[in-house]
């Protein structure tokens, strides 16, 4: 029962805030913070009891529908994987919610924001605790809805409203894949539970690769993998805490979680794993190149999120769920930190262009220090968290995937260090570009979460490192094998990250031009291609959106010309016939009818009083008549 309370607390808070939120005024966040703190406490309690005892994971299961001999069971399962996700979601989520109090303080829909956040937490916790595909799918769709509501939270802004629609429709394309996979599993095996997925994989037979790829298709929609990545950068139109919570730390990680959870379905199918690896590395590499060219602080972080999610998928494609999940956890901490730091900066300077910022470390020391910690963690400098999880991914890839993947991951790693250092240098160092504004440090509700998150960004990685004896791996029940070649990989990884940072420092810190003029001129078409985000949006616009619109216009003109023409023709014919009838009418029928008409007119005038035009009066009369008829039938009014 304790298990069910984890998602139910936020649901309760949602119900209270959506119905009575306005009455709470500026105390609305207290309700949602208290509810989420309850979920967090329960998650920690379950985590500790899992750590200390060897009992099986808590499992709550009941029959939801019993229908024509079939029954559908619903349930919650708190195994180590789910509990890890719960801790990440509730822990980071609580800090982000606290931060939102400062960020949203003057918003007219203040309480509504916290209501939506609560609904999101309910959905996300349901998703990760679900013990079967159906409940997971319910949570999956609900987080999509919350994402839509929160991206277009400032729906007066057209860009925000459009971004919300785009996110909802694009992820819906992915959801279709997941739904198809679930229906296939239900039809072929009839067992939708997560508890025995290896047997499910065996029962699927030759359909198994199809199901696995369809599941990845769903995961790609939610985790914004190529070619369904287009919604995530646009989603940055939402409030920054939302970007941090939903579009960096938690919801977009749902796809990675889904693949990790259903790993037994992928394992017997190397082809399906290869699809995951290829699309993951494409996303990761392309997004990293785009991030190097963006000048909008949130867009840099958005493309960086795409790149890191791709990296997690490549990690999963090695066939072990651990490296991807580990990177998910560390990424959640440092990326939430980076987004909240960006929010703090945007809150202070009221725009997002890094080319117009500079020298901000002096007025905002806390934001600058925490942001730099997050950046270093993401760049992969030991002993911060990003280093350890990236190393796990590198080792896993070097064991199971072809060499080009390893090379590309190193390239991504170098670019990551480059673009995040570029963002840090342009934002916080150099001289202020804008002498009119007077930025100031954010209030403690915003800087407090930054400090706590930076502690996580520094320390969480250690849980999975060899310095703590691979504690995280043990918790997830994974055997740690001896890492051969790990040291070489580590050294290359540090060297690559260091090179990226130094290049960024030389180019943006000291202002050196790194390439000679002719090389820059030769490469400028590539630069335009990358800065234009590879024109994927434009491609979709030309290939999908415009043809559909053209089709719609064609259908409209068909309707206007052919269908309406037929109707109008029938109308004209009817008119001609009517003219003929009119002659007969006027000369023969009218005399007879007029007499009758006058009589009817008088009777009608009397009944007219009954015709009030109010639909509810009619219903009342009908109801009264029914009662009278009933009484007559029963013989009471005889």
């Amino acid at each position, binding site marked *: 029962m304790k298990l069910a309370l984890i998602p139910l607390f936020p649901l309760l808070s949602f119900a209270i805030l959506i119905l009575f939120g306005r009455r709470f005024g500026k105390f609305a966040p207290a309700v949602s913070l208290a509810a989420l703190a309850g979920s967090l406490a329960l998650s920690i309690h379950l985590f500790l009891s899992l750590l200390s005892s060897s009992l099986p994971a808590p499992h709550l299961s009941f029959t939801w529908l019993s*229908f024509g001999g079939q029954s559908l069971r619903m349930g919650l399962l708190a195994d180590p994987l789910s509990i890890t996700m719960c801790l990440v979601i509730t822990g980071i989520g609580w800090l982000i919610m606290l931060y939102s109090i400062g960020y949203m303080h003057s918003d007219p829909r203040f309480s509504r924001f916290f209501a939506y956040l609560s609904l999101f937490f309910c959905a996300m916790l349901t998703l990760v605790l679900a013990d079967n595909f159906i409940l997971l799918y319910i949570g999956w769709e609900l987080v999509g809805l919350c994402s839509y509501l929160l991206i277009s939270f400032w729906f007066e802004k057209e860009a925000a409203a459009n971004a919300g629609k785009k996110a909802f429709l694009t992820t819906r394309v992915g959801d279709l894949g997941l739904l198809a996979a679930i229906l296939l599993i239900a039809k072929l095996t009839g067992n939708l539970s997560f508890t025995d997925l290896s047997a499910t994989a065996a029962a699927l037979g030759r359909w198994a690769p199809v199901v696995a790829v369809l599941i990845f298709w769903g995961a790609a929609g939610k985790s914004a993998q190529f070619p369904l990545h287009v919604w995530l950068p646009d989603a940055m139109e939402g409030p920054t805490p939302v970007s941090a919570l939903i579009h960096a730390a938690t919801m977009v990680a749902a796809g990675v979680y889904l693949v990790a959870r259903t790993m037994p379905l992928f394992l017997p199918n190397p082809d399906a794993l290869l699809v995951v690896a290829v699309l993951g590395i494409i996303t990761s590499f392309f997004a990293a190149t785009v991030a190097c060219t963006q000048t909008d602080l949130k867009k840099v972080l958005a493309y960086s999120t795409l790149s890191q999610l791709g990296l997690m998928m490549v990690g999963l494609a090695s066939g072990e769920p651990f490296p991807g999940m580990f990177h998910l956890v560390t990424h959640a901490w440092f990326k939430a930190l980076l987004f909240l730091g960006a929010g703090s900066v945007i809150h202070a300077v009221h725009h997002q262009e890094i080319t117009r910022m500079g020298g901000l470390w002096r007025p905002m020391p806390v934001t600058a220090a925490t942001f730099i910690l997050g950046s270093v963690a993401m760049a992969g400098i030991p002993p911060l968290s990003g280093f350890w999880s990236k190393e796990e991914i590198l080792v896993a890839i070097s064991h199971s995937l072809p060499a080009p993947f390893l090379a590309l991951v190193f390239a991504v790693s170098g670019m990551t260090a480059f673009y995040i250092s570029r963002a840090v240098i342009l934002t916080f160092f150099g001289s202020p570009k804008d002498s009119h504004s007077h930025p100031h440090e954010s209030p403690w509700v915003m800087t407090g979460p930054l400090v706590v998150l930076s502690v996580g960004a520094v320390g969480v990685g250690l849980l999975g490192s060899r310095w703590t004896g691979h504690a995280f791996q043990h918790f997830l029940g994974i055997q740690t094998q001896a890492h051969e070649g790990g040291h070489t990989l580590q050294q290359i990884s540090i060297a690559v990250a260091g090179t990226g940072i130094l290049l960024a420092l030389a180019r943006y810190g000291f202002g050196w031009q790194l390439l000679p003029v002719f090389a820059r001129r030769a490469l400028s078409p590539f630069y335009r291609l990358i800065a234009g985000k590879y024109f994927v949006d434009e491609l979709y616009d030309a290939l999908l959106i415009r043809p559909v619109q053209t089709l719609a216009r064609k259908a409209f003109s068909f309707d206007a010309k052919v269908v309406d023409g037929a109707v109008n023709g029938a109308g004209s014919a009817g008119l001609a016939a009517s003219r003929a009838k009119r002659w007969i009418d006027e000369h023969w029928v009218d005399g007879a009818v007029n007499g009758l008409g006058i009589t009817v007119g008088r009777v009608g005038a009397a*009944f007219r009083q009954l*015709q*009030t*035009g*109010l*639909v*509810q009066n009619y219903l*009342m009369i009908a*109801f009264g008549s029914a009662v009278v008829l009933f009484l007559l039938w029963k013989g009471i009014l005889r």
Partner: protein
Amino acid sequence: MPVPLPHVLIVSAGLFAIGFFGVLTRRNTIGILMSIELILNSANLNLVAFSRIWKGTGAEGQMAALLVIGIAAAGAVVGLALVLAIFRHRNTIAADEIRLLKG
């Protein structure tokens, strides 16, 4: 122990009465639509309850209830579209101000 049939019927009758009262008294057309949903659901409750009593496969009543749910959703869509159209033309959705059919 299963819930006895009369109890379900009483709940259902209550639900019907609340819904019917709402249809008769709400000024807001959307409120009337919501009340109609209550009436439909009271009927669903009856269907499901009777299906458990009746010695069939046990699914007939549930099938009918599912059909009602589906049709209710479609009905709500049409109803809301009508309300929206009325609002665009007349700038009100108060039931007592929509009396175009007055004799």
